[in-house]
Structures are given as structure tokens and as C-alpha cells.
């Protein structure tokens, strides 16, 4: 449910960017949602559709979400592996159970297209 507050924050950020660039309409917004950011992508998308439609500036804006896979780094050998089915039990490289998430908590406004 906190997705809605984050969308509200995003819309405020977009309004500020539009003002800086003398833009009258935002056409596309690209956001990265990390797998460990605690954000439900569908809820974020839904919140954006509902709230962006209420503002003239964003009523035509498309939201593109970039969702990188979870990355785990082994604290024993440094091996980095990707896994989308949950944390692997052991490092495929050295066999130690010392894998921990490497980043993935980001929530970033990457790029905005405007006219």
C-alpha cells in the first residue's frame, strides 16, 4: 500500500522536472524497481495509472518499469550469481552457504521523456 505514497512522490518529482525544463507534458517515465525494494510492481503500476491520469501534465504518460533480477554475492569467494527463484542454498562456485543479496533495494527514477 505504500506504493501509492511513492507514486505521489514520483508525481511531485515529475512536476518539478517539467517546471525546470519548461515542459507541458510528460510522455514516458522509466523507473527501476529493485527486487528487494519491498515494492509490488503491479501496485505501483496501478497507482501510477490512477494518479497520473488526474494531472494534465502526466495524463498521457507511459510508465516503463525496469526490474533487474536479484543478485547474490558469496562472502566466501566473491562469486556473483543471479537467481529469480529465491536465495540459493549454497554458492554454486565454492559450495559455502555465505550468499547474501548484493544491492537490489533501489527505487530509481531513471529517465523522463517530455515535450
Amino acid at each position: 500500500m505504500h506504493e501509492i505514497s511513492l507514486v505521489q512522490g514520483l508525481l511531485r518529482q515529475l512536476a518539478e522536472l517539467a517546471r525546470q525544463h519548461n515542459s507541458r507534458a510528460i510522455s514516458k517515465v522509466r523507473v527501476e524497481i529493485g527486487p528487494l525494494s519491498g515494492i509490488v510492481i503491479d501496485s505501483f503500476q496501478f497507482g501510477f495509472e490512477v494518479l497520473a491520469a488526474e494531472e494534465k501534465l502526466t495524463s498521457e504518460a507511459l510508465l516503463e518499469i525496469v526490474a533487474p533480477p536479484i543478485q547474490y554475492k558469496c562472502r566466501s569467494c566473491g562469486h556473483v550469481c543471479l537467481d529469480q527463484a529465491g536465495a540459493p542454498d549454497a554458492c554454486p562456485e565454492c559450495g559455502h552457504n555465505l550468499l547474501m543479496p548484493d544491492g537490489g533495494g533501489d527505487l530509481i527514477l531513471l529517465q523522463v521523456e517530455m515535450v
Partner: protein
Amino acid sequence: MCDDCGCVSPSHKVVAVNQSLLAANDALAEKNREHIEELGAVAINLISGPGSGKTTLLEKTIERLGKELRIGVIEGDIETERDAERIRAKGVPVVQLTTGGACHLDAALVHKGIHALEDQLDDKKLDLLFIENVGNLVCPATFYLGEHQRVVMVSVPEGPDKPAKYPKAFIGAHVFMISKTDLLPYFDFSSEMAIKDALQLNPNLTVMSVSATAGDGFDSWLAYLRFLCQ
């Protein structure tokens, strides 16, 4: 470029932003932290699901440390003053923030809370500020409030699978507290599993097992708080 034909419209702009969506919250949280430090306090953001025993932990902490340290509390709830009333009964300054539906505290709300709390302090000084977040193991984890330490709590009846199911809350925390340990004989709760999963997410976590009502492990919690306030 327009989507229909690929032409480049002269008025079309692509702006690379690369800024966190939480930048505004985080900037305000830094101000909160400065404000908290001006009061001389260390702030703890207490996060758990509803009913894990956050308020009881604070009540017992105030009973044991209230004469030794100047403690203030900011209570976050969706509705009611109930938690604040419990804390007020222990004789320390407290502010209740009601979010009116929102599932978490954010830096802007806490900013108001710190001002309201400051108004209750005669000498504008505090050693320890507890921010009891809205009972929820998901949403509060995303919002930095300006705290120095984040404590995430799971009670024995909730089950040991919480770290694996709610990773974000554990990744961002400093302390993982297992609460209501006096109930361990009655529940199938594997502390080993909970701790292993939590440390896999965040090897820097300090783990504590505490029963606020029976007192088990409470001295290590108090020792940790005294250490923070040194």
C-alpha cells in the same frame, strides 16, 4: 523520438534523472536526524508486525531505564491514541502520530512528531528517542526516518519464517529481536532458522532474544541501549 514514425520532434526532451524516488523523504529524514542530535538523543526506529510487543517492550524499558535516561517516544498508528496513553502512564513525553490509513511513518510525519515532542520537554534535552512504527513488516522498511538504529522484531507466535518472507525489513535493520521468548515452550518456533535466515540477508545484524514480561534477555537489550547513549 515519437512512437509512431520514429521522427525526432524538436521539442521532445529525454532527461536522465537517476535519482531515488525516496530522495525527498531521505533529505527530510536527514533534517530529522540533525534535529534529534540537537536534542542530544539517539533515535531508534522500532519495526514489527502488529502485536509483536513493541509497546510492551517500551513500557518495560521505561520502567527499567526511565530514571537513568531521558526517554521520549513517538508512536505511529493508523488510528487511536491507545499506545500513547500506555506510554504516558509511564511518565515520559510521548506524541501519537495517526496516519489515518497509511501503513507506515514517513520522514515528514516524524518531523511533526519531533516538534510536538520538543514542546513537551522543559530543557529541550533527550537521551533516547523511540519511534514506534505502524505495526507492519512491509511498508515501514522503505522509509528512513532519521533514526540512528533500526530494530526489527518478530514474536515467537508469529513464526520463524518472517525474515525469509519479509527480507526488506531485515536488510535495513541493525538489530533483530525475537520477542515473547517466554512462549517458546508452547510454539514450534525455531530460533535457529529465524536467525540463520536473517543473517543470510544481513550478516551485520545484532540478534537478541527477549521476553519483556518475564525478563529473559532484557538485560542485554538494556545494555545495548546504555551503550548507544554513552
